[in-house]
Every structure is written in C-alpha cells, then in structure tokens.
C-alpha cells in the first residue's frame, strides 16, 4: 500500500485532479458504452417486433380489401342479372 490515509489517496501527492480526471473519464465513457451496448439488444428486439406488427397490419388490410372487392363484384353481378 502506497498511501497512509484516505485523504492521502485522494490527493495523489498533489496530482489528484489529473489522476482522478483520467480514471473518472475512462470509467464514465466505458460504463456509458457498456450500458448502450446492453440496451441495444432490447432496442433491436423492439424494432424487429414493431416492424413485424406493421407487416401483419398491412397483410390484414390487404386481405380485407380483397374480400370487400369480391363481395362488391358479387353484388354487382346479382344486380345486372
């Protein structure tokens, strides 16, 4: 152990500001990076899910339109006959 007391440790022989600036900024940047990378998994999952839901809605709308036009055709045929 190179230090006698906690305040000694914080002071770093007069270089405290520079040492803690270095270690602090490194810790900040690396934890932000880790957090962002972990959260990314969730975001990707949500994005894929949203895309899929949109596709489903489009498919349903297309099916509905097709059905409606078929019914209209039938009705039209009845009238003309």
């Amino acid at each position, binding site marked *: *152990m*190179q*230090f006698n007391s906690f305040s000694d*440790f914080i002071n*770093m*022989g*007069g*270089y405290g500001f*520079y*040492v803690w*600036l*270095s*270690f602090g*900024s*490194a810790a900040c*940047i*690396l934890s932000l*990076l*880790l957090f*962002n*990378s*972990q959260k*990314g*998994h969730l*975001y*990707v*999952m949500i*994005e*894929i*899910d949203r*895309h*899929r839901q949109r596709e489903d809605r489009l498919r349903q709308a297309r099916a509905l339109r097709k059905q409606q036009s078929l019914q209209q055709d039938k009705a039209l045929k009845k009238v003309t006959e």
Partner: protein
Amino acid sequence: MWKWLHPYANPEVTYHFTTKLLPWLSALAAIVLSIGLVWALLFAPLDGEQGHSFRIFYVHVPAASLSMGIYVSMAIAAFCSLVWQLKLADASAAAMAPVGASFTVIALITGAAWGKPMWGTWWVWDARLTSELILLFLYLGVMALQNAFEDKNLAGKAAGILTLVGVVNIPIIKYSVNWWDTLHQAATVSKLGKPSMALSMLWPFIVCFIGFALFAGVVICLRFRNEILARNSLRPWVRTLVEKYRNHR
C-alpha cells in the same frame, strides 16, 4: 480447421455461441480489471520523476494500444468481408467501431490529463497526438458510413474501404515517436527485448491491459449480437426469438 470454422459462418450458431460465452467473459473481465485497477491505484510504486501522476499510465497506455489493436482487427474483418463476402465479418466490424472510438477518446483525454502536469500543456500538435486524433476521426467516419445507408451490405462495403485506407495511419501512430521529434516519450513497454520498466510497474500494467482488453471483448460481443439480430431480422429464428422475448415480458 475450415470444417471446424464453417458452422460459425452461420449467424444463428454464432449468436447462440456468443450468448453462451458472454457471462464467462464478463466475469473474467470484471475480476481481472478490478485486480488491475486496485493494483495500479493503491499498490504500484511511485515513479521517481513523475510521482503519483504516473498512475495515469495504467489507463492511458492500455486504452491507446487497444484503440490501435481494435482498428487493426476491424480492418481484418473489413478485408474478409470485402474479399469473401462474409456478412458476419461486416457485423463484427460494425460492432468494433464504437468500442475502438471510445478507447481512442479515453487515450486522448487521459493523455491530456497527463500532459498538463508533465509538459505544462493539455495539448500540442505533435506527431503522436495528432495521428491519434486522426484515428478518432477515422473511427467516426467509419461509424458514419456504416449508418449512412439503408442497405447494410452497401454500408459495410463503403465503411470497409475507408477502414482499409485508414490502416496507413496505424504505423504512423506507432512509429511517430521515432520518426519525429515529439514531446511524447518513446515506447517503454513494447520495446523489443527487455522492456525499460521496473517489474513492480510492469506487472500491474499487464493485468490492467488484459482487463481492459477483456472488457473490450465483452462490449464487442454484446454489440456483435445486436448487429446479428438487426441484420437477420427477417429470418425465422430471429422471429421466434423476438416472439419468445415478447411473451416473456
């Protein structure tokens, strides 16, 4: 060897392999990095001239070496993707770029914080510092290109070419302290033969370096998984995974 490697060209196999690897790698990184940091901050001896400010060395040098090392791995991945059209290589390059950029920023900040008490200035436009700053811009350019195209294959190709062109900067950073007169001190650790450092300082450095490298590995694995999912979003196995995940929530 090719037979052994071949299944890992399959995104699904690689995704599950990375998922299984992650907890072990994270635990190892946490242990090694904590040992290294405690050793560096509390137990490593003072430098004769620099006193306690020398402790910045234990973050600055690993961050700087990793910023270059990750760039070289990214370039190898980009080369594989351009030559053999490996889609996973593209995904791994995209996973590495932000990690390398973060380490470059750390190297620059800690370097400035070390330069102020030792050289009396936060920044000088000398060869080592400027070439490291250019490395940061290269990383930012690669990341911008990766996100500039809707089509991920096209984006990977463009970013890969920039990555390969940028490799020329790596030897410039490495040898800048020998080629030009700079304020920055010459290599101490990676000197061929015997490193010009006391063993009581070298050991905590080695542990710190391995710790930071393992941390980089963990983050790259995390981002690699995300990239694989995003690039295979139409595949049935990703669909079932997302479905399972939604029902679980």
